[in-house]
């Protein structure tokens, strides 16, 4: 079961997702231990594999550090659902093969702790706790292609060997 960790706030930035004091490493497991530390110190203790993070506008603003995506992925979060995403964070996630969901109404229909189920192809999040359904526009084809290949570098390798 995927549990929603809801942060009803805009501009959750990369310094909150993974503070720069941990940028002296790029080890994903180590970064994961500090995921969202300056936003919610207890996050890493309550997150389980497959859970989702829900946020407001401009999620991931700030630094270009891909460490932010790695920390979230390392914490075994399956996706982030937000009203909008900051540009570099969004791009980094696609390049890492990590799916993001832009759903402007998510915060209206998902509460902290709700159980959710995501249909990526059809483009909706089902809130199993309340029964509500939140639609989203699936990522564009080129982005899905990169994600399906496992990330941009895998996509490049595949492109040169196809």
């Amino acid at each position: 079961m995927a549990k929603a960790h809801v942060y009803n706030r805009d501009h959750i930035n990369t310094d909150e997702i993974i503070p720069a004091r941990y940028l002296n490493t790029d080890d994903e497991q180590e970064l994961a231990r500090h995921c969202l530390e300056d936003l919610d110190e207890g996050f890493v203790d309550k997150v389980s594999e497959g859970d989702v993070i829900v946020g407001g506008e401009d999620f991931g603003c700030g630094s270009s550090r891909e460490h932010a995506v790695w920390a979230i992925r390392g914490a075994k979060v399956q996706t982030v659902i937000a009203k909008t995403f900051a540009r570099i964070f969004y791009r980094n996630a696609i390049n890492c093969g990590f799916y993001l969901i832009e759903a402007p109404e998510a915060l209206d229909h998902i509460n902290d702790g709700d159980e959710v189920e995501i249909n990526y192809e059809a483009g909706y999040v089902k809130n199993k706790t309340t029964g509500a359904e939140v639609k989203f526009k699936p990522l564009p084809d080129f982005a899905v292609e990169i994600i399906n290949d496992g990330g941009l570098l895998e996509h490049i390798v595949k492109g040169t060997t196809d």
Partner: protein
Amino acid sequence: MSMTITEKILAKAAGKESVTAGELVDACIDVVMCHDVTTPPAISMLVEKGLDKVFDKDKIVVTPDHFQPAKDVKSAELHRRLDLWARRHEITHYYKVGRAGVCHALLPEQGHIRPGEVIVGGDSHTCTYGAFAAFSTGVGSTDLAAAIATGKLWFKIPASVKLVLNGSLGPGVYSKDVILAIIARIGTDGALYEAMEFVGPALSEMTMEARMTMTNMAIEAGAKNGIIAFDDTTKQYLDEHLPVSLRGAKSRRAGKAISSTGTSEIAAPAGGGLAMTGGYTVYESDADAEYAKVEEFDCSALEPMVALPHLPSGGVPIGECAGGQMDQAYIGSCTNGRIEDLRIAAKILKGKEVAVRTIVVPATPTIWKQAKDEGLFDIFYDAGCVISAPTCGACLGGFMGVLAEGEKCVSTTNRNFVGRMGSPKSEVYLASPATAAASAVEGKLTDPRKYL
């Protein structure tokens, strides 16, 4: 078809006659900037995927800066990985400690940035280089890896926002105040995915250093890039900083070639771009180019600005926050660590003593030496400041001035997010070097105009 300067540069880089906002293109990269935090993971990815190559060893510029000289064992390991890779691939432009500096000050200073080029760097403030009429944007490690190996990246052509800077800045008001006022008005996602194109009479009067402060913070409004058209000020800076063989511009408007020896007539340039045999290509927005929005700012009415915690959009005029007690002042970074910034701060600090600990960080070794030779170090020393080696250091809470719980810092940097400069319970107030210096003297947020 009419295009903005950003569209023209990306069209050229994609080998197309024209592009429109929203279109996806594969663009060739002219310069790739690499530093010590995001490049080592990119290198590891390339090795792991069997792509350990560089597309052009002359077009990659490497400088450790975030944690240099190494602040601890882990950052030393990052530096070692960067060093081994740069030497393995015989990277031509590799700045080691002693020559290394804050990347966004170092690359223009060392002549690596030219108009008309596409530049990417593994750092969000790579947008700084747009001050030179170039397309420049920050990327993460995977993009960086792809750019290093292939010299190409995918881009969505951004729509452009035009920011018209009218009037003229008053004494004690600087480009930092302008960009803080802009972000305060449009918000930290006010230009999300867009190009911020700065124009106007107040901009024309600014030095390249001052312009870089503005393009540096384009990312703080969510922009993909910041960009400023080429003019005599750009040309003069480039004539002073580019290698001789690369000086001189070719305009994309038919009939004008600008070179270091003057303007002469040339044939209309051919379709997709010019063969580069030296010099650089100047692109301009068409008069009827399309903009997503146009914002006008009256710079004459502007006061010194301070962005209150915890967003760069928290800017208020100094009159609304003066008197707030500080624990530290920080003068440096890719936003305001250039020689002009240090001169402005020194002018205010001369003959005075600081009331709070004050850290001065010249952004590059050249700036460090200039400041020393000009006697600025004496002024800083006499005032009780500490002068650091060039580094990003405490701007991102790395080292050389991190904040304790409850502490407040007035800083010339670009971000005041929660925990940015240290404890998540510390606070950062963004301001110009003049405001930071005046605040250092009084130990509280202070209008610098009283010290002019």
